[in-house]
């Protein structure tokens, strides 16, 4: 990884800044090339693109779980990150409370009610002593989100967290996630391949090209929050979705999709 000496942050309250980031795996696969991204403090941004466009790779590079082959990565929230995987990724041998407590335990921090608070925030207050396999898919994902929130992270990274859920559960979790975001006002970077989900949740959508992924265009969704089921059925929402879907289509255009 090459670090430029120049400060890559161009906006004063930028939390995450990626400049010309490229990632080539050992296998020779180029996942990202010339990827630029700047995320402001408190912003809800979605990375939208076809599967295999490197959006998960970008998220892992931001988290520090993967290193960029080229370009500059600046993350002022490093060490204060919460990460939610596509799968719930819970420890099956530990109950929900122990799973949520894990990040505190690894940092030798005292829980002091943080676990109960995080569980209450995602509506799992009554399931602290249930085991993961006793929970539904949606509840497992809630536990996973509670674990990501328990350290009060400055930056929440979410890698297609609701992709495996049914639509009804996904809608409910979308609403609950927005409620949490509005309360905490933390920065969220949300990876998804769903146009509808990205429009519903985000202030800004970054549309990516197929592999090697780079930014095709960015679309702001200026609809006010709180957004609810009324927004989901509004003409505005439909309009944004059309706009984003068209951009995604153009992003795919150059490639054999």
């Amino acid at each position, binding site marked *: 990884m090459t670090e430029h000496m120049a400060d890559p942050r161009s906006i004063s309250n930028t939390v995450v800044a990626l400049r010309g980031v490229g990632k080539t795996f050992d296998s020779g696969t180029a996942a990202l090339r010339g990827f630029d991204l700047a995320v402001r403090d408190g912003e809800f941004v979605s990375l939208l693109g076809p599967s295999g466009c490197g959006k998960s790779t970008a998220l892992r590079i931001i988290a520090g779980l993967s290193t960029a082959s080229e370009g500059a990565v600046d993350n002022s929230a490093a060490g204060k990150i919460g990460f939610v995987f596509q799968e719930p990724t819970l*420890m099956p*041998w530990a109950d929900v409370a122990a799973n949520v407590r*894990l990040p505190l335990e690894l*940092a030798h921090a005292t829980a002091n009610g943080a676990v109960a608070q995080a569980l209450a925030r995602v509506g799992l207050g009554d399931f602290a002593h249930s085991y993961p396999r006793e929970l539904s898919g949606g509840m497992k994902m809630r536990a996973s989100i509670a674990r990501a929130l328990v350290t009060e992270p400055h930056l929440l990274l979410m890698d297609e967290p609701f992709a495996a859920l049914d639509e009804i559960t996904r809608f409910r979790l979308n609403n609950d996630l927005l409620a949490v975001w509005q309360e905490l006002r933390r920065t969220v970077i949300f990876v998804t391949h769903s146009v509808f989900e990205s429009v519903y949740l985000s202030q800004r959508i970054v549309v990516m090209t197929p592999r090697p992924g780079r930014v095709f265009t960015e679309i702001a969704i200026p609809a006010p929050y709180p957004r609810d089921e009324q927004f989901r059925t509004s003409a505005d929402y439909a309009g944004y979705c059309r706009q984003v879907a068209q951009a995604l289509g153009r992003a795919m255009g150059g490639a054999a999709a």
Partner: protein
Amino acid sequence: MNGRALRILLPLFVLALVIAAWQAAVAVFAIPPYVLPGPGLVLSTLLADRALLWQSLLVTLTITFEGFVLAAVGGIALAVAFNQWRAVEYSLYPYAVILQVTPVVAIAPLLLIYLPQPLAVLACAWIVAFFPVLANTTLGLSSVDHNLLALFELYKASRWQVLWKLKLPAALPQMLAGLRIAGGLSLIGAVVAEIAAGAAGAGSGLAYRIAESGYRLNIPRMFAALLLLSLAGVVIFFVLSALSYLMLRRWHESALTRER
């Protein structure tokens, strides 16, 4: 009749059938007891020789238990060492395999030359029992969910936190499966070594009783000792299965009954 009752009654029915056939064969063909004793004679020998056989059983069980504990500790410790230091795995794994594929019957006479007999018997029990623990635990430690590993990395977990809080609990089901195999094998190893020591040996375990009874044509006692040996193996298996069930029942698929 429900499935549970059938699972208990059907094997009992087979057992009764075999015993009846055995008794009938002995009676009809007038087989002398020094060739094949009837089930009644085996049972009465078991009762008559109970002091001697009980003593021998305790000796065999003690060796089996010691071999099992050493195999469990050694197998798990070696698996952890393999997992933590690649160089250790590369250096020692081939020899663990060689030790495993060489039949213990062939090693036992050599061990009996170089070691005092009790130690040689224990070594045999250990050699056959430790490999399944090693192999299963190694597999368990290396098949941890990659995302969970990434999560631990994200929260800057130390190497030992990853081992204690992630890899060892994740490996528990495979580890317990290895221990369940090791329990039976440890008994087999102890028996093989005692038989190998044979007449020259000064042993007093059940296997030694079988060998000794054979030389003396005391076939009923041979059967009685064999019966005790099988029972010991069955009990070991059930105890370890129960232990496995108790440790996994809250979370692992293997310990859960499927809802229908």
